[in-house]
C-alpha cells in the first residue's frame, strides 16, 4: 500500500515538473516562531503572507516561495537557520531578523554566501557602519535613530532628568546610546536587565531604584512580551502617578491589544517614536493596514510593516531585471533605488543601504471602534541621515 502510494506520489511529482522548470523566487525569512517572543514573529509571518497575497504570489511572472525559519529567540539557532538557507542554492534573499544579536551572529554566514540579506527589523548599529555590505539592505532603521528622536522629544517637552531601563543585549545598548546622544538633561540611573529566552520579567528592584532616583521621567526599551510585563509593573508600583513614561518599541500594535485587555489605562496618551504608524495616509499603507486588520483582527505593528515592505522591495528588484535572478548587480541597483510603494511613503537609501526617512512622535489613542492604536502627533526628524554612515566604507 505504502509502496503504491509512493509510486503515485512520484508520478504526480513528475507530471508537475513542467510547472517547476520555470524558476521560483525563493526567499528565506528568519523570525521568532516559538518562545513568548513569537508574538512578533507571527505578526511578521502574517504580513509576509499578506504581501504575497497582494502580489498574487508572483514576481516578474515567477512563483514566490517564502521559507520561514524559527530563530527560537536565540543567536545560535538563528545562525543555524541562516546557514541552512545560505546553503540552499535556490534561495536568493535571506531576510527577516527581529533581533540585533541574532542578525549579528548570522551576518557573515549569509553575506559570505553571496546572497542578499535584508533586515526587516533588527537595526544593529554595526551593520550600518563598519560592517556595512553592498548586499545588505534594511527596510527598518538603525537602532539608535528611534531613541535619538525620543531624546529630542523629551528636550522639546522640557524633561530635565530621566531614568533608563533596557535589556542587556546589542539593541538595548544601541537604544541607550541613542537616547543619551540627544537628551540634554540629567541621566539619574541606568539598568540593563537580563535578556533572551530566560529574560528577566520581574522589574521590582529596578522600579524601586527608579523611584528612589527621583527622576522626572522613565525611558524604556522593552520589545515584545517584556513590554507588557514592564508597563503593568510600572502601573502597579505607583510610579505612573509621579513620573512620565517615554518608550521606544514597547507600546505598539503587538502590546496594545494586551494592554487594553489588561486594563492598563496609563498607556493611553503615552508617547513613543517610530518611523511609521498605522494611520499614515498613503495608498500602500491604507491597503496594508485595512487588509491586515480585516484578515488578522488586530493592528499591525512596525515589525509587520517592515516585513510587508521587504516583499515589495524584493519584487521591485526582481522585476527590474526581468526575473533574471543571476543578475546580482542589476538587482542591487534596483534595491538601492527603493522604487516601490512603501507603507511609510517614499524614501531613499543612503550609501550604507539604510533608509533615509522621517521619524515621528506617536501617541496612543482609541480608534472609532474602541481599539487602542498609535497615531502620529508630529514629525521629529525629517529625512534623517544614518548616524553611523561615516563609518561605512561604501
Amino acid at each position, binding site marked *: 500500500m505504502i509502496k503504491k502510494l509512493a509510486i503515485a506520489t512520484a508520478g504526480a511529482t513528475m507530471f508537475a515538473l513542467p510547472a517547476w522548470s520555470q524558476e521560483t523566487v525563493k526567499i528565506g525569512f528568519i523570525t521568532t*516562531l*516559538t*518562545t*513568548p517572543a*513569537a*508574538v512578533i514573529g*507571527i505578526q511578521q509571518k502574517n504580513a509576509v503572507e499578506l504581501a504575497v497575497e497582494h502580489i498574487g504570489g508572483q514576481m516578474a511572472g515567477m512563483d514566490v516561495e517564502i521559507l520561514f525559519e524559527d530563530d527560537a529567540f536565540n543567536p545560535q539557532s538563528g545562525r543555524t537557520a541562516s546557514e541552512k538557507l545560505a546553503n540552499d542554492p535556490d534561495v536568493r534573499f535571506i531576510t527577516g531578523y527581529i533581533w540585533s544579536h541574532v542578525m549579528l551572529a548570522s551576518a557573515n554566514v549569509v553575506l559570505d554566501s553571496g546572497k542578499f540579506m535584508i533586515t526587516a527589523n533588527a537595526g544593529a548599529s554595526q551593520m550600518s557602519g563598519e560592517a556595512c555590505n553592498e548586499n545588505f539592505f534594511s527596510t527598518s532603521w538603525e537602532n539608535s535613530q528611534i531613541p535619538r528622536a525620543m531624546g529630542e522629544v523629551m528636550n522639546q517637552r522640557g524633561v530635565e532628568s530621566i531614568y533608563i531601563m533596557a535589556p*542587556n543585549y546589542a539593541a538595548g*545598548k544601541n537604544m541607550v546610546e541613542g537616547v543619551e546622544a540627544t537628551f540634554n538633561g540629567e541621566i539619574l540611573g*541606568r*539598568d*540593563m*536587565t*537580563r535578556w533572551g*529566552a*530566560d529574560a*528577566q*520579567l*520581574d522589574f*521590582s*528592584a*529596578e522600579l*524601586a*531604584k527608579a*523611584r*528612589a532616583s527621583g527622576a522626572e521621567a522613565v525611558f524604556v526599551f522593552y520589545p515584545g*512580551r517584556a513590554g*507588557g*510585563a514592564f508597563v*503593568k*509593573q510600572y*502601573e*502597579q*508600583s*505607583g510610579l505612573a502617578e509621579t513620573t512620565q513614561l517615554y518608550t521606544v518599541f514597547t507600546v505598539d500594535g503587538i502590546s496594545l491589544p*494586551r494592554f487594553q*485587555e*489588561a*486594563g*492598563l489605562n496609563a498607556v493611553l496618551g503615552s508617547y513613543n517614536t517610530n518611523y511609521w504608524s498605522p494611520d499614515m495616509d498613503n495608498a500602500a499603507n491604507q491597503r496594508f493596514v485595512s487588509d491586515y486588520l480585516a484578515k488578522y483582527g488586530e493592528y499591525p505593528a512596525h515589525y509587520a510593516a517592515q516585513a510587508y515592505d521587504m516583499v515589495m522591495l524584493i519584487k521591485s528588484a526582481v522585476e527590474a531585471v526581468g526575473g533574471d535572478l543571476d543578475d546580482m548587480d542589476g538587482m542591487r541597483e534596483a534595491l538601492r533605488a527603493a522604487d516601490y510603494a512603501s507603507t511609510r511613503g517614499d524614501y531613499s537609501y543612503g550609501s550604507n543601504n539604510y533608509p533615509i526617512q522621517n521619524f515621528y512622535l506617536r501617541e496612543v489613542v482609541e480608534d472609532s471602534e474602541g481599539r487602542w492604536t498609535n497615531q502620529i502627533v508630529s514629525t521629529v526628524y525629517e529625512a534623517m541621515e544614518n548616524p553611523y554612515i561615516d563609518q561605512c566604507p561604501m
Partner: protein
Amino acid sequence: MILLITQLINGLQLGILLFLLAAGLTLVFGIMDLVNLAHGSFYMIGAFIGATMAAITGSFLVGLVLALPLAFLVGYIVEVTTLRTLYDRHHLDQVLATFGLILFFDTLLQLIWGPVGVAVVLPDYLNGFITLPGDIPIPTIRLLIIAIGLLVAAFLYYLVVRTKMGMLIRAGASNRTMAGALGVDIKRLFTLVFGMGAALAGLAGLMSTAITTEATIGMGNDIIIQAFVVIVIGGIGSIRGAFVASIVVGLVDTLGRSYLDQLLKLFITEQNAETAAPAIAAMLIYIMMAAILFFSPQGLFPPKTR
C-alpha cells in the same frame, strides 16, 4: 533607607514565590527520592489553567482558588500514570523521564493554547499599590503574594508537625521501607504529597503571571533551576530548610540586582559595571550555593536520617 526596605520586601516576595515551588519539590525529592525536573511544568500548568479560569469567570481570585484543585488533579494523574513507575529506578532514568515530561507538557500546552500564551487580567484593586508606614509604596499584588505564601507556609508547618498525615510524611522521609513495613500506605501517601506539591507549584505559577501579565509556554523551566538551588541550600526534604533558603535566595537575587552595579563601579568603569552587573547578579545565588555546600554539604537543614 526607603529603597532598602522596598528592596527587602521585593526580595521577600520573590522568595515566597520560590518557596511555593520548592516546598513540593523538596518533599518529592526528600520523601520519594525522585528527581522531578517536570515540577516547573505544574507551575506553568497552574498558570494556564488559572488564567483561563480567571478569564471565564471574570475573577482573578476565583482563578486562584480553582487553580489549586485543578493543578492537584494534574499532579495526581501524572503521579499515578507515569512517575509511580520511576521510584525504584536510577536518578538518571528519573531525570530523563521527567525531562521528557517537560517537553510533553510544553508541546501539549502549545497545542491547546497556542504559542502566545494567556493574558491575566487583574481587578483594579489588585493593580494598584499600598503605601506602607514611612511612605513606602508596595504593589498590592506583591503584598497579596507574600500573605498567601506565609499562609501556605503556616499550613504546611501545621500539616507536617501537628497532624497524623504529617507524621506519616516525616516517617516516610526518614525511612520509607520501615514506614511501609509498619502498615503505612506509602503509595497513597506519595500520590497525595505529589498532588499537593503540584497544587502549590500551580498556585505559584498563577501568582507570578499577575506580575508578568501572561502565562507562557516554558515559563516554569527558568524558575525550576532556582527552585533546585533552594532545596539544595535548604537541605533536601526539609520544608523548614526550603522556607529559609527561599527567602535567602530571593533576597540575594533582588539585592544583587539593586546594589551590585553601584558596588562594581567602585572597581571598574561605569559602562563595564552596568553590563557586568546583571550577569553577575544572576550568578550570585549559584556562588552562594557553592559556598554553603562547601561548609555544609547536606544544606542548611539536613534531614536527621535518610
